[in-house]
């Protein structure tokens, strides 16, 4: 590959960002934990190894929690690749989950088929709502960011209205729907853990999205529009249509993630707030640099940190909010284009100088003939 030095540097930069984030976290842990050593052990080691043995159950939990954020990460990845800063993943997840839940409760079907239909419905509805910000963007040039952000709350409160007034199970103390029919539940991959077959679906989705983005004309158009919209228009691509497509696909992925999470982890709908997977998906996509193949790795990293923080709050009394702080710091350093830009510039200069020297040698050689 070309410019190896610069590529290596990008990877190095990522690790430095993560290292600094963990360092900041460490400082905070030292300040607020009674036993910083134990807290750190909880954060870094206990998610996989506890008491000298492999913590199998915890590992499955980490994998299970990757599922929804792989989906939202992919969703963000597709939309951001087209330069569409659509933040509606959050709403699409909740809506996808809700629609899947309704089908799981009220439409009896055969085992297997039931779950598939529910997931499909969640996926479609997730895609449909994204048409709203996408079309408003293309036709009226209104910011998809503002529009999708507001839409999240419209979706959330609409769902809450239905949850409270139309579909509640009054026999329960908490606000929730009736339980899902057994036929609609996504079976566990490993009994007695959180890990359901939804994880496999997430990995398959990753492969499909990677193919879509790099091996199809639509994915190609999405990426080219993301790089240079004027160029894409001039080349004859249907820019408006592709911009809408990218957001609809994003919505479908998010909706599917919501449906799979709902049927794989719960047996009744009880989300009373936006679930947060949409936001995490943005972090995941940024960590993965919008490369679909890297999404599961980024999701693993976030999920691992999540689990570590959870263990810290259980065993070492460190507040669970720590994860948000760590996420924020990583986000900052990754998104900050100028972080270590001085070093990057030095590498670029070095490369450019070598090029210039090569050129001069070449022209000197030609000059000899002239």
């Amino acid at each position, binding site marked *: 590959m070309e410019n190896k030095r610069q590529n290596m540097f990008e990877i190095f930069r990522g690790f430095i960002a993560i290292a600094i984030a963990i360092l900041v976290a460490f400082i905070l842990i030292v300040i607020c934990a009674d036993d910083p050593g134990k807290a750190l052990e909880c954060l870094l080691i206990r998610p996989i190894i506890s008491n000298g043995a492999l913590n199998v159950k915890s590992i499955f939990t980490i994998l299970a929690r990757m599922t929804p954020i792989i989906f939202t990460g992919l969703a963000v990845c597709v939309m951001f690749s087209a330069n569409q800063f659509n933040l509606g993943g959050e709403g699409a997840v909740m809506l996808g989950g809700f629609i899947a839940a309704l089908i799981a409760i009220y439409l009896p079907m055969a085992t297997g088929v039931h779950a598939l239909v529910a997931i499909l419905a969640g996926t479609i509805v997730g895609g449909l709502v994204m048409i709203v910000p996408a079309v408003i963007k293309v036709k009226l040039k209104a910011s998809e960011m503002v529009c999708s952000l507001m839409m999240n709350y419209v979706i959330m409160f609409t769902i809450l209205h239905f949850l409270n007034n139309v579909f509640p199970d009054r026999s329960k103390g908490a606000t929730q729907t009736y339980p899902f029919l057994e036929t609609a539940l996504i079976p566990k991959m490993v009994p007695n853990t959180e890990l359901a077959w939804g994880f496999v679906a997430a990995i398959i989705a990753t492969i499909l999205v990677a193919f879509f983005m790099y091996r199809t*004309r639509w994915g190609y158009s999405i990426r080219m529009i993301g*790089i240079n919209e004027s*160029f894409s228009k001039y080349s004859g691509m249907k820019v408006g249509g592709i911009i809408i497509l990218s957001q609809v696909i994003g919505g479908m992925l998010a909706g599917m993630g919501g449906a799979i999470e709902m049927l794989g982890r719960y047996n009744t709908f009880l989300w009373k707030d936006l679930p947060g997977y949409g936001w995490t998906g943005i972090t995941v996509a940024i960590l993965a640099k919008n490369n679909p193949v890297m999404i599961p790795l980024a999701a693993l990293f976030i999920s691992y940190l999540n689990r570590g923080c959870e263990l810290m709050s259980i065993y070492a009394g460190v507040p669970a909010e720590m994860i948000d702080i760590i996420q924020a710091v990583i986000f900052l350093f990754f998104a900050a284009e100028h972080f270590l830009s001085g070093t990057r510039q030095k590498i670029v200069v070095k490369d450019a*100088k070598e090029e210039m020297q090569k050129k001069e040698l070449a022209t000197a050689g030609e000059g000899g003939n002239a």
Partner: protein
Amino acid sequence: MSDNDLVVQMKGITKVYPNGIAANQGVDFNVKRGEIHALMGENGAGKSTLMKMLFGLEQPTEGEIIINGEKVSLSSPTIAISKGIGMVHQHFMLVPSLTVAENMVLGMEPKQGNKLFINYKKAVEITEEYSKKYNLYVDPHAKVRDIPVGMKQKVEILKALVRGARILILDEPTAVLTTQETEELFKELIHLKEQGYTLIFISHKLNEIKQITDRLTILRGGKFMGVHETAEISKEEISHLMVGRDVVLSVEKEQAQPTDVVLRVRDLEYTNEWNKKMLDKISFDVRKGEILGIAGVEGNGQRELVEMLFNLNVPDNGSAKVNGKNVLGRPQREIRDMGVSLIPEDRMTFGIAGAGTIEENLMSDRAANKKYNNGPLFNLKAMHEDSDQLIKDYNVLCKSRKQQVGMLSGGNIQKVVVAREFSSDPILIIADQPTRGIDVSAIEFIHKKLVQLSREGAAVLLVSADLNEVMELSDSLIIMNNGRIAAYFEDTSVLNDTIMGEYMLGLKQQSDEEIRGVLHGE
């Protein structure tokens, strides 16, 4: 000459941009106190980059800047201004909704006694005082959006002076001005010079340079090509140093055998958002097998004309048809499917997706073709084969098709654009400034290809501000001036610079009858 006379010394300046492009390579630039010093070079020669560093907008990678004998680090325009440097940008940096006086004091507003509100009266006084002192008439109360371009420029100059500038950088100040406005500006500049100001004048218009500058520095391809007393160097020498070729590149071509009309343009009219008539009843035909050139000083409607033909803009009136089918307002896909190709003037905006690979850029107009798709998936093998073939045929210097296009040199980027546009079997090629700012070997290559394609039966519309280029390549030629066709020449062999210049600058205008020669049939 002692160093004390020098107000600006830039020594061994090298600038490498984050995208790896070395815009300046070891440039020396010295300006004497109280002179008008021209900085010359073609587009992309590194003039703007050098001046951005002097004004603190960019920092040099290597080299030092010495102002009034003191070594300085200009890390921001604020610091540059404090050292007495002012810049008048080509694109004005004014707030259109504020008045002239408000713009003048922006960021250094005189306050009322209570320190809360702006003392507008004082702002007007300041404006009037400077306006008078420097003979630059402006209306302090007018909103900037309502005043003409020439006055906006004066506001910019005054703005710099109010901030204490003793050294003024003027970035192509005449590009937006009419002839009278230019004359006026020159008088004002000489007036400033007489008062002891130092002026740096960026331009590539030879006549202007000869008219008002004392010395000139020439850049070519980011490198320093020497500094000269303006009076002691001829225009030919300047142009030779700027362009680096004195031989007119001649292209061998057979006599054109034009046949049917491919592109038929009738009565195109367009008035731009500043109410300037850019296209005034433009009509012409381009026939199969011929190269029709459009010459003219930039900004006389050529850009707008090309934009209309590729639906990057919509005219107020008129028609344009390719083989009888309307192209105005049609989607680019449809225009391309009619067999129209465009080498865009602005290659970085329209020609390429810089962060994409060479292959991705070569395939942009044809990625949806059956040939490159197996059902929903790309046929990567076909893509790779054709990309490699194009890279080879068009002599694109690169490591592989996977290299980022934005990392290539200007000439090679243009070859990628040309490879794509020429390889789609076009029946009409619109080439807008096809060789601007690229190296000689790439220019020769592109010229040969254009001629070859036209002789093989394509219709070519060549728009170029490079006189050598249009005269050498075109079979027949239109000259545009002020949105109109000033002249049509059926045979370009009778032309020379002088004749062209007279029409380009509006000194002469052919009769409607003569111009009608460009209409073939109907």
